[in-house]
């Protein structure tokens, strides 16, 4: 019974982690940016979504839509105010660009965290479940909400996969992640490609934030941990590999769930970090990493 519960909970948790990590990995694969404000963007989506749902009475669905839009806007601000100026700056030497982007997004992430704390305080909030009630899966009482979240996560992941592999824009994104120069030679403006990536990223991070609020609840204190777990998963899976991120999300998700159930809930974040250290020592490019 416990095993089944772990199986089900772990599945949902991993699905959500996967959704959060995919955006992060797509961002790195296509534009080479490691966005350390990732958790902050998810947080904005979660908190604004909750606020509109609870205080304005828009209900969980209205809140979700607002939350996703908020995530998208936060993503655009991150690109236009923080990342793009650094990329275009002539004062910063090319080799240090990555470091400056890491530092800049880290600072921006902290600003978001403090800002959200100021606006909403750091009390944890959670959104009402999208569908109330419980369902009996093989004898385990599981909230409908949890099932919905897993389903939505996988639907979003599936949509992304469809888009990347079967639409023209998707192929362009894929090509950009393999060889940006090749794309330029074929007449595609990279600036347009980057804009598309940040848009998709914002939508994914926004959705992940909103679902997180519904599943676990969030508080402004979580921003750092959210970023940390996303990049742990992405490094484990291999920077730039979407399949890798999904597999890693499940490894981490299950490792955490098992730890929480069988050892102690407070030790939840530990296994991911240990796995990460082992991976970085043995196989730094991650499970399916290319670069």
């Amino acid at each position, binding site marked *: 019974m416990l095993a089944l519960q772990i199986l089900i909970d772990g599945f949902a948790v991993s699905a959500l982690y996967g959704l959060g990590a995919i955006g992060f990995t797509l961002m790195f694969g296509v534009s080479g940016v490691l966005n350390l404000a990732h958790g902050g963007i998810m947080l904005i989506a979660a908190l604004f979504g909750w606020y509109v749902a609870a205080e304005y009475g828009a209900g969980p669905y209205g809140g979700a839509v607002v939350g996703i839009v908020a995530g998208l806007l936060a993503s655009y601000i991150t690109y236009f105010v923080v990342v793009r100026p650094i990329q275009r700056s002539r004062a910063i030497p090319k080799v240090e660009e990555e470091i400056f982007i890491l530092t800049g997004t880290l600072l921006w992430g902290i600003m978001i965290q403090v800002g959200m704390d100021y606006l909403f305080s750091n009390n944890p909030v959670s959104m009402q479940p999208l569908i109330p009630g419980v369902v009996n899966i093989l004898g385990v009482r599981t909230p409908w909400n949890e099932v919905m979240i897993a389903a939505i996560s996988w639907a979003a992941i599936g949509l992304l996969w469809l888009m990347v592999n079967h639409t*023209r824009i998707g*192929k*362009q994104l*894929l*090509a950009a992640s*393999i*060889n940006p*120069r*090749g*794309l*330029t*030679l*074929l*007449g*595609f*403006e*990279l600036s347009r490609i980057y804009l598309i990536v940040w848009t998709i990223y914002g939508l994914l991070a926004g959705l992940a934030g909103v679902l997180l609020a519904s599943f676990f609840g969030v508080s402004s204190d979580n921003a750092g941990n959210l970023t940390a777990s996303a990049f742990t998963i992405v490094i484990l899976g291999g920077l730039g590999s979407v399949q890798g991120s999904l597999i890693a999300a499940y490894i981490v998700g299950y490792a955490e769930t098992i730890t929480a159930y069988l050892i102690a809930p407070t030790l939840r974040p530990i296994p991911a970090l240990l796995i990460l250290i082992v991976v970085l020592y043995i196989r730094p490019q991650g499970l399916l990493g290319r670069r």
Partner: protein
Amino acid sequence: MDDLARTSAQITAPLLEVSGLTKRFGGLVAVRDIGFRVARGEILGLIGPNGSGKSTVMRLVMGIERPNAGSIRLQGTEIAGWPTHRIARSGIGIVFQHSRPLHRQTVLENIQLALLPDSLWRLFAEPHVERRAREIAERVGLGEVLGRRPATLPFADLRRLEMAKALARDPRVVLIDEPFAGLTQGEVATFSELIDGFRRDGHAVLLVDHNVKSVAALADRVLAMYLGERIAEGTAEEVMRDETVRRVYLGGKIETHPRQYLDARGGEALLDVREVDVLYGKAQALRQVSIHVNAGEFVSVVGLNGAGKTTLFNAISGLVPFAGDIRVAGSSLRGRTPARIARDGVVQCPETRELFGDLSVRENLDLGGQHLASDADRESQLTWLFELFPILNERQRQNARTLSGGEQQMLAIARALMMQPKLLILDEPTLGLAPVILEQLSKALSRLRETTPITVLLGEQNVTFAVPHADRVYVLEHARIVWEGDPGRFAEEMGTGYL
């Protein structure tokens, strides 16, 4: 008598002895069973075109790469597999092709660095270090600029700094990569002196370069490489005359096929390049280069590696900044993004091909056709290309990465053609390809020429490939256009002296 014999044996005993050297990168064999010796006071030239493996050999000797097999002996001691710093300390020095100074330090500090021991505990350099650094600076001609930082120095001075560092290390064997690239005649003479100085001091020198001409004056012996293997060895003259070497560089006898309907085409210039200069950092990559290509023409720009062909094409494609004027169909290209220039009809198929390795052949081609108006256009274009390059039709679903070199080149050209370019620029399409593939490529280009009004600008080192198809030929040498004319005259005037 015995003493004399023994001493001369010591003098002529190889300082550096390499045998059976092999290096693989994944499936590609970059260096196959290479062996040579360099004795004290001897200069060996290692030559080969891009992709021949000569730079890899140099890196293997220096320990920057580890060989898969083979032995490298320095005065009898096996050093293959040693870390670079240990090899350096045991007496091998290297002058890289691209200068690598410390940008935040002065010239003097850069030279002093080369004189320092590998120690954590010496906080203050011994007093003789500065004095010696100054002496070395004087010897190479940097005496006036000791307090300056590399960013403010001209190109030749940066190369002098690299030589100074090598001198400071006082190595028994010096490896020099492309010693004269980017230098003027006068500077070449000075540098030759410095290299000769190494020889006079009793050291051994390995010069690595693209072509024999550059190193002929200095090298005692030359070893020619192609596709990782040794193809000739001997004195400079012997190597230059060697059949295999000539075939690799020139492709063989030059044949020309005057194009039947040349007079029917031509007219106003489609591409007009006027007095273009390009600087790469400090090196002058193009000097007052002017060429033009009329609509419907096939123009070849021939020149050895490093002459400036790629730079010229990159300037046209908007990938590097330039001074001067470049116009297509009368309007200037300045200010347009590279993607825009490509969409406007100037499509480049670069030396590096830039394929999307993890995508299939079909997906690569589809991306090329994205800007075409309709699906019908794309379909018909694809059909035509599959006729031109049947092998691509067969391998449609394969990932580009898994294709052979020749197939990848065809894919790159086909992909560029998908864009229905007004001007197709081809940069060194024959690089690293086997002769039988060159045949196929040549046939495809002929068909292209004869059945379409396409305008082509081809840059090639392989003259046998480049000249027959061309309506006109330019020769680019050391950043300048040195000859222009039709293929017939080229065969007469340039044929023998080219190498």
